[in-house]
């Protein structure tokens, strides 16, 4: 997105001022409102859809397959499709790597395990229909919703198949299926999420919009799991196709500030997502809209 020099300098000066003035009056830690829906794809184990007020939209489907543990190196596979980008483009493979890496490092794989030999494998398919700002956070929150509402069929055969080789069999009744959280040992299943923070001057802004991205001094991606900010923490230029003249190096103090903001506000984001899921499960209308 190309802005005129006058627009850029107006935005830059508004964002750098103290207190911060964002073009839509959001506070620095405020996300844009989301519209979300879960469990609407009948053929998937879990699904979710998030729409942002600027028209960005992401749909996630999670499917599962029973695999032999010895044959699989990864129990999660992920694919991203963004309209207008080749699957092998840098943009896509970068997003894919970040998400897959985060999930593989911070996932309770025990809950997928069926028997000594067999396990479920998750296939996460992400479609981004429209995106204006950097989509990592959108993707990550959608995946969170989808994983939380993923259901697995109930295993009715023995879990111990070391002595007698037996294929796992499942209950025919989908009502018997279990949410991942019910299969979890400690009763709380919370997938990791990514949030994006823009850095401008001494200000840190959550969820930068497309216009804000073009004037940012740097962009920070932080991950959050188990009630705290974890690694990977990385920085990147969120703006696409722009010769971002403001782009600068990172100040150490800013990173520390970002961590404390993350620790403070990510639990609230997760709580809001959990509230929606609860509402959606109670509703159970299966509608996409």
């Amino acid at each position: 997105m190309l802005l005129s020099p006058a627009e850029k300098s107006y935005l830059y000066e508004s964002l750098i001022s103290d207190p911060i003035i964002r073009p839509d009056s959001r506070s620095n830690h405020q996300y844009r409102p989301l519209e979300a829906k879960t469990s609407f794809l009948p053929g998937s184990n879990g699904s979710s859809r998030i729409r942002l007020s600027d028209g960005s939209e992401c749909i996630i489907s999670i499917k599962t397959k029973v695999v032999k543990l010895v044959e699989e190196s990864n129990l999660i596979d992920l694919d991203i499709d963004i309209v207008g980008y080749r699957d092998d483009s840098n943009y896509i493979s970068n997003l894919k790597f970040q998400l897959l890496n985060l999930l593989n490092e911070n996932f309770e794989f025990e809950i997928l395990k069926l028997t000594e030999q067999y396990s479920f494998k998750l296939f996460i398919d992400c479609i981004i229909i429209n995106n204006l700002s950097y989509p990592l956070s959108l993707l990550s929150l959608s995946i969170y919703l989808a994983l939380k509402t993923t259901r697995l069929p109930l295993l009715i055969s023995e879990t111990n198949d070391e002595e007698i080789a037996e294929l796992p069999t499942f209950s025919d009744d989908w009502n018997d299926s279990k949410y991942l959280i019910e299969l979890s040992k400690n009763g709380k299943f919370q997938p990791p999420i990514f949030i994006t923070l823009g850095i401008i001057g001494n200000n840190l802004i959550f969820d930068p919009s497309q216009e804000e991205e073009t004037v940012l001094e740097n962009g920070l991606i932080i991950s959050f799991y188990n009630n705290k900010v974890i690694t990977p923490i990385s920085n990147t230029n969120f703006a696409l196709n722009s010769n971002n003249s403001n782009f600068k190096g990172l100040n150490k103090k800013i990173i520390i500030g970002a961590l404390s903001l993350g620790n403070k506000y990510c639990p609230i984001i997760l709580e809001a997502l959990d509230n929606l899921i609860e509402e959606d499960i109670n509703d159970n209308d299966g509608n996409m809209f």
Partner: protein
Amino acid sequence: MNDLSLVISISKPISQLSIIDNDEDSDIEMDGDKINNNNDLNLNRRAIVTPGELITEDPIWMKGHGTYFLNNKTYSSVAGNISRVNRLLSVKPLRGKYQPETGDHVIGRITEVSNKRWKVDIGTKQDAILMLGSVNLPGGILRRKSESDELQMRNFLKEGDLLNCEIQTIFNNGIASLHTRSLKYGKLKNGIFMKIPSSLIIKSKNHSYDLPGSVSIILGINGYIWLYKSKQQEENSTTVVNQQASKLQGSLNNNKDYQIGTGSVSITRLEEESSWEIYSDINEEINNNIRNNISRYYNVIKALSFGEIGITEQRIILGYESSLSFENVGKLIERESMEQICQEVLNNERMRG
């Protein structure tokens, strides 16, 4: 719960159907009774038609834009409102690309600098063009544009620049030609740009307004909007402009033999105001109050556009006033707040008549 929404608000999507059901006071009147006892189906009501819907069987009507004619019947080819001018029947689409008309005041963004012309995105199907001959030269002198002007076109306007202009003509192939030959047109600065569907802009004589809170707005008919700091009505403002202008010109003279208006005494206002200053990219000093007001207006317009309410000066001001009751301006981006603002604007308007 209140705490949550300060960080993120997540809601379930509302289906469009439920909005119509709940909204009994909608200002679109759907007269169910009239349809039955009328042969001219949709003609006599101000209804919305969908593509392929029969409008009339009477062949007397002339088919305008947005309609097609099949077996002596006229159908709609778009989703929109029926409009009748004498015998001409057309359907105005609810959404879609902006259709340029001569004389429209629009805002555009330069997408390309080419031979003696700029290509400008004004939200139409094809980019509009702005000929080098249709802009004011710095210094305000009136003359044919020379080769040296052609060479420094990027000094006037370059890719990404926003400008405020009028549609001069529309060529046979549908491409609009623009001009900025007036002091009210030209490059935009000191503010922020936003886009809304062009169908929400209501055409009027004037499309630039000064709003309360030292903010001005240009409502382009193409749905492109510019919110900026109001020009100060100071006496000495012109001399300041001139000083800056001569500085700019001075720096230019170091590079090139550009001689227009250097050191000359200005006679007309055109000369004073259309110095290099009109092509400057540097914003004036804007204080935080004005910046906050601009953001507030930005949210109000977003809210009105969310409620599909036609945008006028009065409604923007009404919306601004009702937005003042929100303690936290950041709340304005939430759906409930936007709905509330729209409702208050409509109520206020009804009360004032």
